[in-house]
């Protein structure tokens, strides 16, 4: 239940695959499960959103390191808002 934007950044001679995870809907951030710097596995839950009384887990669809967490518990995200970045 999250949009993913994947791009490749060049850091010196190294290419880093950057995956942005964005909200697909307006929702409340109920729980943040991970922290910046965490090693993320494919399928790990990053945050749990709440919308229309339902819990909506936001899952990583690729493994990596969580380089940025853009939301906190209690935040309201709009469609397209950045939730997290995995490198």
């Amino acid at each position, binding site marked *: 239940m999250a949009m993913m934007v994947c791009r490749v950044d060049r850091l010196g001679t190294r290419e880093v695959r950057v995956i942005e995870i964005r909200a697909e809907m307006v929702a409340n951030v*109920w729980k943040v499960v991970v922290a910046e710097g965490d090693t993320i596995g494919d399928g790990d*839950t990053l945050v*749990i959103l*709440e919308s*229309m*009384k*339902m*819990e909506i*887990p936001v899952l990583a669809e690729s493994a990596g390191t969580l380089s940025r967490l853009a939301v906190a518990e209690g935040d309201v995200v709009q469609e397209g808002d950045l939730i997290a970045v995995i490198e």
Partner: protein
Amino acid sequence: MKAGRGKGLAAGLRATVTGEVGEADTAIALGSGDVPVLGTPRLLALAEAACVAAVAPQLSAGQTTVGTAASLEHKRPSALGAAIEVEAELTEIDGRVLRFVFIAYGPGTGEEAVIGAGTVERVLVDRNRFLARAGIVPGG
């Protein structure tokens, strides 16, 4: 974590609830109006009760449904003492979202008996996790 779909949930599940308009059911008592007839909020409550009853036997342990949306036409007044019957049917399952239609009958026959109709949307949730999110300790 996620409330999975109940095993026996399928479109076509139905239930009926019945009642009689009492003093506590009037628009005056409910604060939704100033006339002593069945209040619209009470009609919606009956409709939701029918929806709940339609799917309850098919839910897994720990699951429940909670209301998220409704539309309702309240077409005819029902006086104190009138017998009311509300039928609900599950018409669509979209992931965890359950959509129902309902029709409400009062005294009379045929189209004259129809006092209201509408749709209800409820979602499947894990009861304890839902209560926890609402700040309520389950069983507390």
